[in-house]
């Protein structure tokens, strides 16, 4: 008998809903899909004829392109809809938009939206599977999956690692999804950033909370740097970029104190000389670029899993 995994999820909304085995299924599939992208004919017919809709209410070229290419390499038909953030409360509602799209009988809807915790209610209005490409500050499951895939590729396993996430934790869906993910493999997560950007009672997530990057670096197996948005500076979260970089920027001096086989990761795009010093570009950029490459394979895996599910009639 072949080894079959029972994939039960119709939607992929967040890593908090995944169990360990489901994460492992995605990661092992992603391996095979990586190989497809190395072929001459970078296409397999697995999702031939399926209709996949990119429904983005928040601007994003990279994630959208990654999903689009992933869908196309699986032979699916892709349609892109982009709406500005301001349209969320005006005129036609999101639910109206989704209901209108039902006329295309989409099989999968990939949604990115600037507000969180609403995708589960949208799912009620469509037959399609929904994949979360980022909802507010809540979750970004495919990002965490590609981060875990990248770590597994480099380290061989996800068990018992010390993961250090640095930056604007409060506004980061990438941080949240990764925390849920790595914790399922008994890895320890430390979040490090300005106190004003660490959410209320965040220790209850089971993470260690720190403001001292220099103290945390030596024991980290993975250092995940998060993007800092300049708008945060204006909202009194921290006084200046200069002070932020002083305390939380990854500089060559800091990286010297890290473990030799420590991985430096970043969800991209990198603000060089803010989160990471540009003099480290040659050393750290390759893995960050690999994250993006792995993103395509991981997204193919997620599309394949929800796309090949038996349809209820």
């Amino acid at each position, binding site marked *: 008998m*072949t*080894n*079959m*995994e*029972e*994939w039960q999820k119709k939607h992929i909304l967040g890593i908090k809903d995944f169990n360990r085995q489901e994460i492992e*299924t995605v990661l*092992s*599939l992603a391996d*095979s*899909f990586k*190989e*497809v992208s190395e*072929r*001459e*004919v970078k*296409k*397999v*017919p*697995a999702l031939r004829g399926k209709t996949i809709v990119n429904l983005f209410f928040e601007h994003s070229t990279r994630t959208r392109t990654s999903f689009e290419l992933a869908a196309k390499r*699986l032979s699916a038909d892709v349609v892109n809809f982009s709406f500005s953030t301001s349209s969320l409360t005006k005129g036609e509602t999101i639910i109206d938009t989704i209901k209108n799209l039902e006329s295309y009988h989409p099989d999968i809807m990939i949604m990115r939206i600037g507000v969180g915790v609403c995708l589960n209610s949208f799912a009620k209005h469509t037959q399609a599977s929904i994949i979360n490409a980022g909802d507010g500050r809540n979750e970004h499951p495919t990002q965490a999956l590609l981060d875990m895939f990248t770590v597994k590729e480099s380290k061989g396993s996800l068990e018992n690692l010390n993961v250090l996430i640095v930056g604007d934790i409060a506004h980061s869906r990438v941080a949240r999804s990764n925390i849920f993910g790595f914790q399922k493999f008994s890895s320890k997560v430390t979040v490090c950033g300005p106190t004003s950007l660490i959410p209320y009672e965040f220790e209850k997530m089971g993470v260690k909370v720190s403001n001292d990057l220099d103290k945390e670096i030596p024991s980290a197996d993975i250092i995940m740097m998060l993007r800092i948005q300049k708008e945060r500076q204006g909202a009194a979260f921290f006084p200046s970029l200069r002070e932020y970089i002083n305390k939380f920027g990854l500089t060559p001096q800091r990286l010297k104190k890290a473990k030799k086989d420590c991985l430096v990761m970043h969800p991209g795009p990198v603000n060089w000389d803010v989160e990471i010093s540009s003099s480290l570009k040659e050393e750290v950029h390759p893995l960050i670029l690999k994250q993006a490459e792995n993103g395509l394979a991981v997204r193919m895996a997620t599309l*394949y*899993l929800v796309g*090949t*599910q*038996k*349809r209820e009639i």
Partner: protein
Amino acid sequence: MSNKKEIKKILSKDDIKRTLYRLSHQILEKASSFEEIALVGIQTRGVHLARRIQSIIKEIEGKEVPLGVLDITLYRDDLTVIGPTPIVKETNLAFDLSDKVVILVDDVLYTGRTVRAALNEIMDFGRPKRVEFLVLVDRGFREVPIRADYVGKNIPTSRQEVVEVQLEEKDGKDEVVVTKGND
């Protein structure tokens, strides 16, 4: 009511060995040149059989033919019909297909749909000179117009029967049996 499984042994370990030797000789006999031969095993048991044939050929000729492995899951025609989502295993065709006679290798030929999928996938990798098909057991009941070029053994079966090929590399022993009845 009997719940017992009826098991009929078709090929023993020695039978399988002899058959593979015979098939390897057949391949060498049919080929216009040694260089054009390439073996591609279909996951999973086809891969083990292809490897064995590769080493038998090496034994006979002193040289190795290139070997590839092919997982046809992503080319199946029944992905949304079968229940659980199957896991995709390795696909690796590290050689240029252009001048090759690609011999697809599998354990059982039944409906022929697996070979159909394998053909589609091979074509996405390149344009071989010719594609042939080698199978250990042909049990009939084709649902697509596919035939094998090299057959280990023809076994007439009924639809209620199951042909099980067990190989040492995967199942711990070499045996081909036909079973009937409740599991």
